[in-house]
Each structure stands twice: as structure tokens, then as C-alpha cells.
């Protein structure tokens, strides 16, 4: 009973306790009036006329007295108005319709910017706006507004079910914390669409700074009311948009650190960039960054060998989280490589030149195909085995590069050869294609390989006669491969089967015209060694972007891993047998993560590993708030405040109290009586 009264009052008042207090306080005023201990004493010449007047009026009855006292009446009105103002009454603007609110709150890295809003971050202001919506939900006996909270960064998280319980919603908002991840509204809209299905009177509110990627193809049903609450004002910010640690070209031990600094402001900025190894300053540079552009900084020092490294912008700005980028330098190890060939000078020379490849007495380990077939190496002995024109019957677990040969994977087979194929395009994002131009790849023939679905094409071509010669196309990351052609003739592709990982060249290097002699070839080999040989994988795993999966090699014998995040939160993960990589996805916070395995019988793989997560996103560093969000050609203009479902009226009551106070004062002084 009391609860229902309370919830009913909450529809009209934000602080209903004052309403409950009102009868007591008003009653107290009346009682005080009657019990007024001290009446003002006035001397009169004779009070017998007054007595007669009192008798005439018979004003001894309390109600008569009450009715006649204009001052008391006015004072009661003033007190009531003050109490009404204190109880913060609201006018419900939503009418008598049930609304279903879907509130999407951006919690990505850029929401941590503190621009405007009295020192509050965008995220805090966003939560405040969400709270206002929640406060404004109406709940009646038969008709309740409901709401669901979805937090999003590069993924969406449903914080509550669709509920009418404000406490639940408020609790969820209270628990919500920002992450250092990037923004992707797409996932949140997908979640929202799932909720919106067949919901009447739906209101979708997106609380964000608007850096939410391309949303033009995202549709929400047309009957859904969409609001975009824009938080954030300025775009003035400096951020480290990327960091990369590469093995220095010279010197096997030291590393080079590459960082790009992005200026999202409208003015040119100069900032000092410091590079720290552990807590020691290793190098410092001053860079000038033009507005809306990136500038690269390279730190090279023999000190940069092992340890935790961070690069920091030495300047105060609105968003501190992107001012630091982290990386872990690890001792480099050589790649154990075995070349199986009848003789291939290009491969032999190319691999021998690579400093990373472990030599046996300055020589590259080379075996013939017969030797390889007769005495296959034990699993794990080599990091990478290069099979040149060797068609293996079986392949043990490991990494392989096959030249003019196919791995014995089911479903992967060659259907004849194509003469004089030409390169059509290549996947620039693939690690082996880094810094390599395949435009000059000119082979005499290539196998027509029929790929499986899961195989990934790196370089695709077409047979010279069929498709005609076209200028090779450099595919941008994310761009879909032209299906017909790529399936037609994959020249270089990646194939996996269980724990066997292969890169396949479908042509013979010896039968190319000049490609092995071009600069691209050794670079390609270097990429293959780093990527497939494990060296590259290690480097990549040591620094991920926030929200990305970190892959950590699991040492043998480990059954449990404990990951400590930068906020000292511990994540204990049980390891399944047989897996060689720990995939850790909870990398929402930028900083260093420590991975500790409970046991390691493996000398190569350490029991404790550090890796770093970085925001590393120019999109997040560009904190300029978007004015509108476009949802399938439906532009939603940013509002600075959440659409109020109800409006507070306390000011009106405060003004009323003031005015009546003025009237009371006037009445008291002018002696006006009713």
C-alpha cells in the first residue's frame, strides 16, 4: 500500500518525501498559530468595544478564526508552495502513453574527454543524461514506461533487460564505467534493433559524442523516435594514433619505436613526445603537428631491448587516455627454419640473408625432399618449414610455406594450370603483403587451385587469356575481394587445417621471369619468416588495440593463466589442453597486462608475459563531436540535453511562494483583511 502510494507520488515528484512531510508541516503551522505563545500586546483605551465586536462575530470558534485570518492563509500557501518546490514536482509531457526507451550510452575512449561540463567527462555527462531519462519514466498502475540500457564501445553490452524498475536502471548506470575501446555504433544498433522488434511507442536515445563510425546503412524502424544526445564541445586534442615496435634493421637486439601523433584541433600544435622504458626516460622529441593531421615520431636507442615501454605526449589536453601508448619489448629469438628443396637459389639466398633465421654454422638447414620424406622432423623442432616443389603426403603440426605445392588438406585441390596468369589484386592488410608490391609478379604458369571457404587469398590473379590484362589492383583493408576472379586463380593464399598453418604459392619461383630478383621478393620472405615463423606473431601479440584479442603462446604444462589488467583486476582463465595460444579478449583498458601461467615446462615460452593494449585510434583521438548522426538517410540532430519526458516545475512554485510572500508582506503592512 505504502509502496504503491510512493511509486504513484514518484510520477509527480522527484523528492516525494516533502509531499509526505507537507501535512505534518502545514498542521504544525496551524498548531503553532493556535498555540502562539506570544501575541503582540497592545494597549487600548478600552477594550469593551472590541469585546462587543468579538461577541457580535462569535469568532471564538477556531474555524471561524482560521477562515478570517488572511495572513495565516497566505502563510499556509507560502509553506505549501515551498514544500511543493522542495518536492520537485514534474509535469509529465509524454502523455498517457506507454513508452519503451532504448538508451544507448557511448563508453568508448573519446567519452573520457573532459571538455566543458564543469570538469565532468563526456561519459559522466552522458550517464547524467541517461539518469534524467530514467528519472522521467512514468509508472502508473496499469501503464509503465520501460527502458533498456545498452552501453557500447566497439561492442555493445546489454546492461539491463527491458524493465520498468528505475532502481535496476539506476544501479546499472551507477556500475557503468568508461572503457578505452574504440566506438562502433553498429553493434549497439543491432542490439537495439533486436529489442525494437514489434515494440510500440519506442524511443531510441543515443548518448554519444558522435564519433561512431559510418552508420548510414543502419536502419531503425521509421516509427521509432530517435534522439541523439550530443555530449562534448571541442575537438582540441592530441593523441597517439598508433605505436609500433619493430626490430631495428641494424643490430639484432635493439628495437625501433614508431609512433604517430594526431592533432584533432584546428590549430597547429607543438608537443614534446617522451619515450620511457620501464620508468626511465629513454628519448624525447618535440614534434609539430598540423591541424587534423598525423605526424610520425621514431625513437631509436640501443637501450630499447626488453621491458615495458611507453610513449607519452608531454602536454595537457581534454583526453588523457590517448596521450600514452604502451608497448612491450621482448628479447628477440631466431626463427628455426628448414628448407626442403632440390635446389632453389632464390629461396636459399633470400632466407640465408635474413638475420632472424637461425643458421647451423652459418648455413641454412637444407634437406632434400627425399630426406624430408624419409625422416620427417619432430613436431616443434622447426618454427617454419619451407617446402619448395615438394608435395607432402602428410604434414605434422607446424608452420609451412609451400612453393608450387599443395598441402594435403581435404577439399583443397588443383584443377589444372593457368598459363601466363596476371596479378589482379592483393590483400594489403595481410602480414606477408606488408611493404611488398606484387605488381611485378610475373610467372609462366600457376596452378588453378580450388580453395576451401576458410582459406584466405593473399594475391589473386587471372589467367592471361580469360580475363585479359588489367592493371593490378591494390586492395584496401576491409575491401571485399572480387569473388569470381579470386576464386578463379589464387596465386598466394593462406590455408589452415587444425594446427597446421600453411602459406601456399601456387606457382614455381624458378619459373618466374624476374620477380625473385626484384626488391619485393626478399621483403616478402622477411614477412613470411616474421609472420609464419612466429617472430612477427610475437611482436604483434605484445601490443594490441583496446578491445582486440591478445594471443599469448601458452607454455607447455600450463593449466591456468592469470591475467592482471592495468587496473590490477585479475582474470583467471582455465586452459584447455592442446591449445597453444591463449586468446584474451577483455582488453578494454589501455595499459600493460601481465599474463602469468601456473607452470611452464617449456624453456622457450616464459611463464610470465606482458602485453600492452593501446587506444591507437585516430578516430578516438579526434574528439570533435559530431553534430548529427545519420541513420539510413535519417539525420538525427544532436541535442545537448536528453529529451525530457517530464519537466520540473519547482521554479514555478518557488516563484509562487515568493509572490505570495510579497502579497503577505503587503497585506501585513497595508492591513488588508478578508
Amino acid at each position, binding site marked *: 500500500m505504502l509502496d504503491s502510494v510512493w511509486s504513484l507520488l514518484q510520477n509527480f515528484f522527484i523528492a516525494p518525501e516533502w509531499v509526505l512531510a507537507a501535512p505534518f508541516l502545514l498542521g504544525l503551522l496551524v498548531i503553532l498559530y493556535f498555540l502562539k505563545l506570544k501575541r*503582540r500586546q497592545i494597549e487600548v*483605551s478600552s477594550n469593551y468595544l*472590541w469585546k462587543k*465586536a468579538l461577541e457580535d462575530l462569535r*469568532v471564538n470558534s477556531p474555524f471561524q478564526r482560521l477562515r478570517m485570518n488572511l495572513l495565516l492563509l497566505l502563510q499556509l500557501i507560502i509553506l505549501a508552495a515551498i514544500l511543493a518546490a522542495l518536492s520537485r514536482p514534474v509535469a509529465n509531457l509524454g502523455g498517457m502513453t506507454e513508452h519503451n526507451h532504448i538508451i544507448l550510452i557511448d563508453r568508448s575512449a573519446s567519452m573520457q574527454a573532459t571538455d566543458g561540463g564543469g570538469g565532468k567527462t563526456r561519459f559522466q555527462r552522458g550517464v547524467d543524461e541517461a539518469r534524467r531519462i530514467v528519472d522521467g519514466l512514468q509508472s502508473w498502475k496499469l501503464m509503465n514506461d520501460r527502458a533498456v540500457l545498452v552501453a557500447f564501445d566497439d561492442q555493445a553490452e546489454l546492461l539491463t533487460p527491458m524493465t520498468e524498475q528505475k532502481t535496476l536502471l539506476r544501479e546499472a548506470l551507477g556500475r557503468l564505467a568508461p572503457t578505452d575501446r574504440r566506438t562502433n555504433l553498429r553493434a549497439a544498433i543491432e542490439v537495439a534493433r533486436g529489442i525494437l522488434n514489434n515494440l510500440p511507442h519506442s524511443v531510441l536515445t543515443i548518448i554519444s559524442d558522435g564519433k561512431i563510425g559510418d552508420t548510414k546503412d543502419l536502419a531503425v524502424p521509421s516509427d521509432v523516435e530517435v534522439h541523439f544526445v550530443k555530449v562534448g564541445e571541442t575537438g582540441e586534442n592530441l593523441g597517439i594514433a598508433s605505436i609500433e615496435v619493430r626490430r631495428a634493421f641494424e643490430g639484432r637486439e635493439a628495437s625501433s619505436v614508431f609512433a604517430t601523433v594526431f592533432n584533432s584541433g584546428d590549430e597547429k600544435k607543438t608537443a614534446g613526445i617522451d619515450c620511457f622504458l620501464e620508468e626511465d626516460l629513454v628519448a624525447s622529441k618535440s614534434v609539430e603537428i598540423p591541424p587534423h593531421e598525423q605526424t610520425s615520431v621514431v625513437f631509436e636507442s640501443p637501450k630499447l631491448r626488453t621491458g615495458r615501454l611507453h610513449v607519452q605526449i608531454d602536454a595537457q589536453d581534454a583526453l588523457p587516455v590517448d596521450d600514452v601508448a604502451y608497448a612491450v619489448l621482448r628479447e628477440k629469438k631466431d626463427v628455426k627454419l628448414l628448407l626442403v628443396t632440390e635446389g632453389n637459389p632464390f629461396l636459399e639466398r633470400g632466407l640465408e640473408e635474413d638475420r632472424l633465421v637461425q643458421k647451423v654454422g652459418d648455413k641454412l638447414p637444407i634437406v632434400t625432399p627425399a630426406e624430408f620424406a624419409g625422416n620427417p622432423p619432430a613436431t616443434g623442432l622447426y618454427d617454419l618449414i619451407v617446402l619448395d616443389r615438394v608435395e607432402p603426403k602428410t604434414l605434422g603440426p607446424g608452420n609451412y610455406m609451400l612453393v608450387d605445392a599443395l598441402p594435403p588438406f581435404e577439399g583443397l585441390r588443383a584443377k589444372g594450370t593457368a598459363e601466363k596468369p596476371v596479378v589482379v589484386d592483393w590483400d594489403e592488410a595481410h602480414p606477408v603483403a606488408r611493404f611488398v608490391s606484387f605488381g611485378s609478379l610475373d610467372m609462366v604458369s600457376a596452378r588453378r587451385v580450388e580453395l576451401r571457404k576458410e582459406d584466405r587469398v593473399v594475391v589473386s590473379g587471372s589467367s592471361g587469356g580469360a580475363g585479359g590484362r588489367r592493371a593490378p589492383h591494390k586492395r584496401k583493408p576491409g575491401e571485399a575481394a572480387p569473388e569470381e576472379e579470386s576464386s578463379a586463380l589464387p596465386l598466394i593464399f593462406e590455408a589452415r587445417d587444425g594446427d597446421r598453418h600453411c602459406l601456399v604459392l601456387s606457382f614455381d619461383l624458378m619459373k618466374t621471369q624476374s620477380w625473385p630478383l626484384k626488391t619485393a621478393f626478399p621483403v616478402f620472405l622477411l614477412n613470411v619468416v616474421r609472420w609464419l615463423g612466429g617472430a612477427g606473431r610475437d611482436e604483434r601479440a605484445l601490443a594490441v588495440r583496446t578491445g582486440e584479442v591478445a594471443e599469448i603462446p601458452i607454455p607447455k604444462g600450463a593449466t591456468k593463466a592469470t591475467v592482471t589488467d592495468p587496473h590490477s583486476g585479475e582474470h583467471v582463465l582455465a586452459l584447455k589442453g592442446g591449445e597453444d595460444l591463449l586468446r584474451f579478449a577483455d582488453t578494454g583498458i589501455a595499459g600493460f597486462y601481465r599474463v602469468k601461467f601456473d607452470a611452464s615446462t617449456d624453456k622457450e615460452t616464459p611463464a610470465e608475459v606482458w602485453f600492452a593494449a593501446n587506444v591507437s585510434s585516430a578516430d578516438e583521438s579526434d574528439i570533435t563531436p559530431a553534430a548529427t548522426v545519420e541513420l539510413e538517410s535519417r539525420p538525427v540532430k544532436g541535442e545537448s540535453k536528453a529529451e525530457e519526458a517530464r519537466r520540473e516545475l519547482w521554479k514555478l512554485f518557488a516563484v509562487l511562494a515568493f509572490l505570495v510572500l510579497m502579497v503577505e508582506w503587503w497585506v501585513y503592512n497595508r492591513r488588508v483583511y478578508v
Partner: protein
Amino acid sequence: MTEGVDQRADAAHTLGEEKQGLLDAEFLAKVGKLDLVSRKILQGRMKGEKRSKKKGRSVEFADHRAYAPGDDLRFLDWNIYGRLDRLMIKLFLEEEDLHVYILVDASASMDYGRPNKFRYAQRIAAALGYIGLVNMNRVGIGVFSDKLDHVLRPERGRHNAYKLMRFLEDKKPQGKTDLAVACKRFALEHPRRGVVVIISDFLDRHGYEDAVRYFIARKADVFCLQILSEQELDPPLGGDLKLHDMEDGDDTEITVSGPLLKAYKKNLGLLLQGLQDFCAARGASYLTASTALPFDRLVLDYLRERGLVH
């Protein structure tokens, strides 16, 4: 005539200087030219200063009245008898030394208002007394509360003006009001007919009727001058009050409201009207004055209009 005026002015000046608080010289000079008037034929102990005006027995014609057996036939108006066939007696004004009795209410209730009612009453009494003395009338003053407190025996002549002023000046208002007791006593002590001026607020719980009657019965020319302050006529009160009666110390709690004020004013109006009606019915004169009315205007204009002075 001119000399007389100058003499009066001189006396007024001297008095005014001495008794600055009560009456000022300028005012005394003005009132010195006035005289008290009795509308009734009054009998004096001695002939007054206007005696030379009288020729034989005949005096100034005043009025007619019906003949009653025993009346002096010499005063029958034969012209009227001839014309109207009715016997009427001619009445003449007789100029004798007039007895002027001034009764001043000095009860606690008079010590109220701004300007103070008692002060106002004192000044009126002083002015009237002065006029009387200057005009060779016998002026006697009684100061009363619930009894007759002080009496100044009737005196005549302007040389008594200072005495009169000092007598009035000394008095302090105190005690309750009982008009009837005081007036009865005064009437008994002063049996001579004359002009009786009662200066009071008439706020007497026991009523004023008996008091006035004692003088009416003695065929005195009664003049009731009711002095009320503006604070009584239109009380500037508001809120919740405890009214303390100055006379009997009685407290009354009121909450001032429109109807209450209305009822008060109605009651006050009834009191005033009652007094007025009572006086009118008995041939007495009546005047209510607010202390807000400048004192000189009251004496020089209002009392003149009412015929008390001329």
C-alpha cells in the same frame, strides 16, 4: 473697544508665554475675542458685564412658548393672540453672569492616542475656561475619573486664567471611568444652572446616560464633547493581538480581521450615535472630535458652528 481687545491680547500673550504647553499666545489672542453662549435662559447670581444692554426688564427676544396658568400676563404676546387666537408667552434672553462648568475626564483611558486625548481635553478645557473667564463668566472645573477627583471652584475674571491653567496642567489621567458618580457629585456641589461642558471619551462601561441626566434635570445647558483619537476611530491593528485595557487591565485576545474591524466600527458608531441621539432628545449639544483635528480649528470653527462659542 480697541482698548479691550488690546488688553485681552496682552493677557493672552503673558499667559501663553507662561503656559506654552497648553495654549499658545496666538491662540489665546484668537479665543479672547470669543464668548461662551448659553442657548437657554440662565439665571446668574450677579448681573453680567453686558448688563448695560438691558433696558428695563425687557431683554432680547428669544422665543415663544404656550401660555400656562400662572405665567406673568405681562409677557403675553397679544399680537399673536389677535392674529391666531392663541395665548403665547414671549421669552426673553437674559444676560446675566453665566456659570460655566467644565468637566474633564481624567481616567486612564484618556491617556491614549496620538495626539493624546487627555492633553487635547486639557487644552479644550483651558480654552473654554479662558473664554469664560475673559467674558466675566463664572468658570468652575471638575476633573474626574471614577469619582470627582479635583474641583476648581467657580471663579470669574481673567486674573483667574493662570490659576485655571495650572489647575488643569497638574492633572494626570489615571483610574477607571465612572461618569455617573462624578457628575452626580459635581451637580450636587454646583446647584447653579449654567453651561456644563463634559469633555470625555464617553467610553464608560456603566453608560453615560445617568451622568448627563443629572445636569439635564437641573436645566443646565449641557454640552457633551466626545474626544476620540484616530487610533480609536480607525484602529491601525493587524495580526494576532492581546488588547490590554488601560483602565481595568483586562486582556482580550483578538485576531484582527475585516469583519472584526467592521463589527468594532459598527459598535463605535452605535456608541456615538447613541450619545448623539440621547443628547438631541434632551436638548443637549453633542460633538465628537478626533484628536487628529487641529485643536484650534475645533475651538474656533467647530464649537462656533455648534453654538458653544461665538
